[in-house]
């Protein structure tokens, strides 16, 4: 397996505070890697070390097999959560400047700047100074500046912060295109669970500087949390108690309750357990009148792993 980024026992201490504690992560080439954690969990600190902006206290980071200190500049592009823009330059001037800083040849630069402006819907604002752009446009330019040199690894630190749904769609499509069409490795940190779920191939959840879980979104949702909720109404509500008793005997079922004449069944990967539920219902000689499933979300997984306490 080819890994683009490998962090081994990565640790960062600020005086008495251990912000990142022996983090071990391997990120595959060409995947979108979600990096989740509550505020102050150590996400940004980890990322800053992974891109070489912050020295680690101990541990090692390899980018494509090369130690972070020795990689060629421009291997990584970072789109920070703060807007890092020159207020008095236009979109085009900003992109041209960063292209020059990465030594992009002139002809390629012209094409690439134009393509980025088109892909991120900034063409009409090419010659507008940054201070006059809307928040969404600034976010998109912030991303464009990070990828003008077409880096192998793109780090997106909360890229959707404050974006409206339309701008978010543009951004998501661009992130998917970076993976699917350009084959880049993307590291994504976000507080938007639907964003992480929608975009990530794998997700790492860290808290208190430690890796708690690393898996695909599907596996996480199927294995962690309070489970999916199956809401069903039987043709004869008098059979509700009998069905509930029978379901409770199965260890795969987390909980079963009756509410307003309906049965709520909680189970991880509930869709996979529907055949079992059907068997129980048939056994009780009753039919289903209505059924819906509310799936376990990544947010449920996140809360289950990190708790509900505030961290700020």
């Amino acid at each position: 397996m080819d890994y683009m980024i490998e962090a081994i026992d990565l640790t960062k201490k600020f005086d008495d505070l251990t912000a990142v504690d022996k983090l071990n992560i391997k990120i595959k080439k060409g995947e979108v890697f979600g990096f989740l954690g509550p505020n102050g969990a150590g996400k940004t600190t980890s990322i800053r070390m992974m891109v070489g902006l912050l020295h680690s206290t101990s541990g090692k980071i390899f980018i494509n097999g090369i130690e972070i200190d020795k990689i060629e500049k421009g291997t990584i592009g970072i789109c920070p959560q703060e807007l890092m823009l020159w207020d008095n330059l236009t979109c085009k001037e900003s992109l041209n400047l960063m292209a020059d800083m990465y030594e992009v040849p002139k002809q390629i630069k012209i094409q690439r700047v134009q393509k980025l402006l088109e892909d991120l819907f900034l063409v009409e604002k090419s010659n507008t100074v940054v201070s006059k752009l809307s928040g969404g446009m600034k976010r998109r330019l912030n991303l464009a500046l990070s990828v003008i040199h077409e880096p192998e690894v793109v780090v997106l630190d909360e890229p959707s912060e404050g974006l409206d749904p339309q701008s978010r769609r543009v951004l998501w499509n661009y992130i998917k295109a970076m993976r699917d069409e350009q084959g880049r490795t993307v590291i994504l940190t976000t507080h938007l669970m639907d964003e992480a779920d929608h975009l990530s191939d794998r997700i790492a959840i860290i808290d208190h500087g430690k890796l708690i879980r690393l898996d695909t979104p599907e596996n996480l949702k199927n294995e962690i949390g309070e489970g999916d909720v199956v809401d069903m109404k039987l043709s004869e509500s008098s059979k509700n108690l009998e069905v509930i008793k029978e379901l409770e005997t199965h260890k795969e079922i987390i909980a079963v309750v009756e509410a307003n004449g309906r049965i709520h069944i909680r189970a991880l990967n509930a869709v996979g357990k529907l055949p079992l539920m059907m068997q129980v219902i048939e056994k009780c000689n009753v039919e289903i009148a209505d059924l819906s499933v509310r799936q376990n979300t990544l947010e449920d997984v996140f809360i289950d792993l990190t708790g509900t306490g505030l961290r700020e």
Partner: protein
Amino acid sequence: MKFISIAVKDFKELIRDRRGLFFILLFPIFFMMIFGFAFGGMGQENTPHNIAVVNYDQGAVLPTGGEYNFGNNLTNGLKDFTYTNSNVKLFNVTETSESQADSLLKQRTVDAELIIPNNFSVSMISLIVNSTGLQTNSVNNTISAPIIRGDEGYSNFFASESALSGVMTEYQDGIVNGYKNQIAGTPGAEPIKFINTTVQGISGTQSFTQFDFLAPGMIVFAILLLATTIAAILTREADSGTLERLKMSKMRSFDLLFGGLIPWSLVAGAQVVILLGVAVILGLHWQGGINSVILAIIIGIIGGIASISLAMIIASFAKNDRQAANLGTLIVVPTSFLVGAFFQLPQVFISVLGHSFQVYELLPWTHTLSALRAVLIYGEGLNAVAYQIELSAILTAILFIIGVVLFSKTRLRAES
């Protein structure tokens, strides 16, 4: 050539930041105008000039007979001269030895020193003989060379020198006319100058005002003020994260700092031209032509680079642009006083390896100021200010290296 892209970026940011540009260009003009109106006529103020007189004159035999010492006569005259239509004395005279006079000059107890040579009386008699037709055997045509000595970096010296030069001319004419009157009816020839007063350290104007002294100081003050603005901009670049973006790229410290140097140096040059123009309008006695302006721009640019270097040092320690602006002001204003932009501070000498020099001379802007004064006020050329320019350039280079090292260490490396 990434530094060119950085230079273009900085230039665009500079001209699009109207408020910043307003502060950089108009604030010094405002100062120049205040000082112009306040001190434009100060040279004519009725206060006595403190001078030391060193009289080496050995006297001579008058054409009319008898020994006479014109040196003593001139000294007494200097003590008695008053301002026109005033009973205020023109000079406070201290008669002393040359070494003591030099010492008083260094301490600024006196503004100027007049050295009357030993053949002063002989030259005066030559003057009288040639101008009146009187005969004497005791003298041939003799020319003497009194010296007016002073510190050309000291404003009071200008006014004292100007007054002394005027008095010396008046004294010669007065003596000649006195003899002519004594031998009434004799058609005297036009007085021939037998006394060539040498003004050391002065090559220019006869009518200095305090403003002439202050105007180059205002230009240096403006150049120094650049440090505050640039420090704030450099810190803002770090604060806004754009510096981090650049750090991630292939840009080197040299590209960022050298690229930034270009537009700001041009600003320093532009400041020299604009402020000189304003000063001339306000009554500066500007000496020299277009060449002096070009030379002044070069001197100003070197001073500007020194300010940029200072800005890097300030930006290395400031946490945000407001702190940089405050810290900058805290450093720039006292530095302006130290380099003598507003008035000369008491001289403080230090000795290193047997060489004695003023502590202020360690600051590059001190030499920028001296060179600008020499070029703009005395009309001196490159040769006369080459030493000051060299010193300024060397000190600027040292400051620049310190600035680059500190800024690179604190701002351009990965955080620990």
